[in-house]
């Protein structure tokens, strides 16, 4: 019988737990932390409504929805946002594909060299962004390759693969190999087994990895700034603009992206609840 059952059998009256007077400490602390984490977001959202006339969005001058209407009136900013979104989608697709394959291999098989592959992934995650970006820049400089859109894609895929690989690997490791064996016994070839048995089972890990890559990629500053050349992504544009004054459109875009994220998460929660019900 299990430990729990054994304990229950021998149950002695449980000690009375005093209602700890310090029980409120944890919740208060945690809510304070959540508030602290949210404060810059609140500022960002509020100043997206500021009716500011000057270059600098620093003094409250009145409420307006104007920036929501004029959201795409700065061509460079719009282009930067478009670049960010398109690069992130491409990077997510490539990194998820490559990383999933690696994760499946590492989680499912024992093979010579798996140790060094693990080492490679670990080194990739552990190495600081400055070094990853600078090393790749050195390569491009040496080979005389101009930096731009595609070098950003290359750089971002490079640092993303490892995250997908270890996420999928963890999921693979918990998988019962009997399921795949059963599929093979029923005559499915390796490719069919992968797509119809393995992939659906590890899908939560793949999705988690993909979301992580997308988030890391769209917000990436350091590696991108080293390898961007003339191409501007959203974080690069905002950083550059901060030198002379960030326009309120940036606040609005940040607010909308934030709202989008909230919506996605709510949808996921609702979908989850539906599944459970």
């Amino acid at each position, binding site marked *: 019988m299990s430990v729990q059952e054994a304990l229950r059998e021998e149950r002695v009256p449980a000690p009375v*737990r005093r209602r700890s007077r310090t029980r409120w400490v944890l919740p208060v602390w945690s809510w304070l932390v959540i508030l602290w984490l949210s404060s810059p977001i609140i500022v960002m959202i509020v100043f997206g409504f500021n009716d500011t006339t000057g270059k600098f969005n620093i003094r409250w001058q009145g409420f307006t929805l104007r920036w929501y209407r004029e959201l795409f009136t700065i061509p460079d900013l719009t282009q930067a946002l478009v670049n960010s979104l398109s690069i992130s989608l491409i990077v997510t697709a490539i990194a998820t594909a490559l990383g999933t394959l690696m994760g499946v291999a590492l989680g499912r098989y024992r093979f010579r060299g798996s140790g060094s592959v693990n080492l490679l992934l670990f080194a990739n995650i552990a190495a600081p962004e400055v070094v990853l970006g600078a090393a790749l820049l050195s390569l491009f400089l040496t080979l005389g390759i101009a930096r731009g859109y595609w070098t950003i894609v290359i750089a971002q895929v490079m640092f993303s693969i490892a995250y997908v690989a270890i996420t999928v690997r963890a999921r693979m490791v918990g998988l019962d190999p009997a399921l795949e064996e059963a599929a093979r016994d029923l005559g499915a070839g390796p490719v069919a087994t992968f797509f119809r048995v393995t992939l659906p089972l590890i899908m939560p890990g793949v999705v988690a990895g993909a979301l992580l890559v997308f988030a890391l990629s769209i917000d990436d500053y350091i590696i991108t700034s080293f390898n961007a050349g003339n191409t501007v992504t959203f974080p690069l544009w905002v950083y550059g603009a*901060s030198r002379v004054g960030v326009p309120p459109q940036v606040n609005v875009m940040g607010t909308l992206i934030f709202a989008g994220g909230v919506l996605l998460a709510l949808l996921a929660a609702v979908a989850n609840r539906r599944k459970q019900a």
Partner: protein
Amino acid sequence: MSRSRLQARLAPYYLVLPGWLWLVLFFVVPTFVMLSVSTQTGDIVSGFKQTFHWHTYVEAWDSYHVQFVRSLVYGLVATLLCLLIGYPVAYWIAFRGGPYKSSLLFLLLLPFFVSFVIRTLSWNFILSDNGIVLSPLRHLGLIGSRFHVLQTPYAVIGGLTYNFIPFMVLPIYVALERVDRALLEASADLYASSREAFRKVVFPLSLPGVFAGVLLTFVPASADYVNASILGGTRTTMIGNIIQTEYFTNLDYPMAAALSFILMALLLVGVFAYARALGTEDVFEVNAR
């Protein structure tokens, strides 16, 4: 050997190949290229030539050891702060969250949906001398008229801590969440106080998460330069700023490469020693879920 057995033997290699190739081409090879650039001499106008000039490393350390040490110190302090601030929150969500666990976790991570450049710039606004935090404090006489937060090491470390909290909280949360509740029941039945239960049962079980969190926070925090650039002043320059300046303003590629290499060596050696002590599997596992 039968065909399917051969296929089975080769399968992992096929699967690993594309990703491995990408990493080798764009991570491993560039690291060696960077090593080779670091021993070149010359300048942007007349070109760079390979001269195996290892002295650049000595110059790099001589000129910038202050910034190296400062970066490691800032990284360490930020990591400790993240740990102290984040652990209780992770504990609270994992053990007291109940049905709201995912929502609370979500609420915690929500701010990080916004670009970190925007978040850091917002702090620049919030913490300004006559801004919404310092002005009232000054009116209440709680701070002097010359007191400022921006352009001090505290602002930079504060920014680093702020930006890396999720990297600390998530692994710890994952580790805590997996603690078998039966163990807690058992300790309660054995008359352990909740404090003892924490000290002797929960905390040790959360250690892999703590180690993973420390790793994922310390390395990027030490190598960051954006926080120092936006929130910092004189005497807060971090090694990341120097590397960026050498690459893009001074165009001194050998020096920049040498600095990057030293930084990577410092961090990776520490990380590998630390990971070897645990076994890399642990760090991956806890982090990945």
